[in-house]
């Protein structure tokens, strides 16, 4: 099904309560990771086929994507490191996160930007997944921190995020390391 009727989407919104939290915008995350930076430059990475193979070998995971959203952090002309933005989809959860990477491709910091979970079929809908792509906290229906309850329950594993971080570490080594 290519187009999802709006009525169905809104029905899901009403009948499937969603636990969600918005933590940081990409701008806040980059400032946290590189407080000494005076400039951030968007510099996307496009992997070629050979690089994708290398990523798979290093990470032991499918490379998944050739295109990566990367921001370089600078103080004057000096490169301080990079922030790589990504999303992962688990069985119930959609997580947007940022990985701070040092110039030598070692991992500096991981920050979750936004978290949203669903226990219905809508997690497979492209529209539901798309709402996260490249999003900052601006303008969303989620306000950072405010009014969101803490959840107590069985532990939900973060395997998808740790796999994602491992993949980004490999991407950094293949395409960003100096």
């Amino acid at each position, binding site marked *: 099904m290519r187009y999802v009727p709006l009525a169905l989407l809104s029905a899901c919104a009403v009948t499937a309560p969603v636990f969600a939290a918005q933590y940081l915008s990409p701008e806040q995350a980059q400032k946290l990771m590189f407080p000494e930076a005076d400039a951030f430059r968007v510099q996307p990475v496009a992997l070629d086929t050979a690089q994708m193979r290398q990523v798979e070998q290093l990470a032991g995971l499918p490379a998944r994507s050739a295109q990566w959203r990367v921001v370089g952090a600078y103080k004057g002309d000096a490169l301080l490191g990079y922030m790589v933005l990504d999303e992962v989809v688990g069985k119930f959860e959609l997580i947007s996160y940022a990985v701070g990477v040092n110039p030598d491709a070692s991992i500096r910091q991981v920050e979750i930007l936004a978290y949203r979970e669903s226990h219905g079929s809508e997690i497979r809908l492209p529209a539901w997944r798309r709402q996260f792509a490249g999003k900052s906290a601006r303008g969303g229906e989620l306000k950072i921190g405010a009014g969101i309850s803490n959840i107590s329950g*069985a*532990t939900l594993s973060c395997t998808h995020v740790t796999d994602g971080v491992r993949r980004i570490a490999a991407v950094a080594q293949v395409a960003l390391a100096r």
Partner: protein
Amino acid sequence: MIRRAQPWLGTLVDITVEGAWPGQDAVTAAFGEIARLHRLMSFHDGASDIARINRAAPDELVQVDADTWQVLRLAREVTALSGGAFDVACAPYLVDRQLLPAPLSPATPAAPAARASAEVFALEDGCRVRKLAPGWIDVGGIAKGYAVDAAVARLESAGVPGGCVNAGGDLRVFGAMRAPVVVRSPASPGRAARHLVLCGEAMATSGSYFSEREHRAHRVSALLDARDGRPLVATASASVRAARCAVADALTKVVLATGDCGHPALALFGATAFLI
């Protein structure tokens, strides 16, 4: 208000504090403390204190961090008070059910039988652990709570006026904050079964709904009754409220295994429990 989350302890750890941007340094330090405890107590990381204890041969003495020692001491206390329903030495069951990887070593070239922790290790002065018999321990049922307490201590000592630290459902609210907390419905984890407001206390919940799976034609989960290894796959979840999150975390397994919200161990720790 500052709210951040990072992946640690096999789950997402969420820290909320009152105050503005300068409080970020305290939150960063609290995450640093959680990361340190994660590295000390990981079952998977071969360099952790827990992995070194698991690899040790009988009679070997293992020097561990003071925090690892404290976690093991509290675990032993809960084991004794629960008649063995909670026991960190239950890891052979979890390895057998493929919920944890086997930490094989020259000392334990084959999987050891599950024994009570009093038979597997002894705690000695000077943060030392003496291995007594082949066995594997996993502090996954108590270390998340302990890490929450440690993060809270770090935030309080930095002068943060109030906040909440939540490690995948094991949480503690401190200072002036009154935090709304939702307990998941075990039958339908996307829904709220109960709404509470916590202030100056910890709460942990255990249920099998996210870890249940089929193994050799039986239902298993990350939770079990350590007295006989019986997997806990009931549709119920157990929540415990206590002053310390480490205590709440460990006691949820006692309540789930015994089905007893009035278990004597609860009163000894000043804790209360409910099943959903």
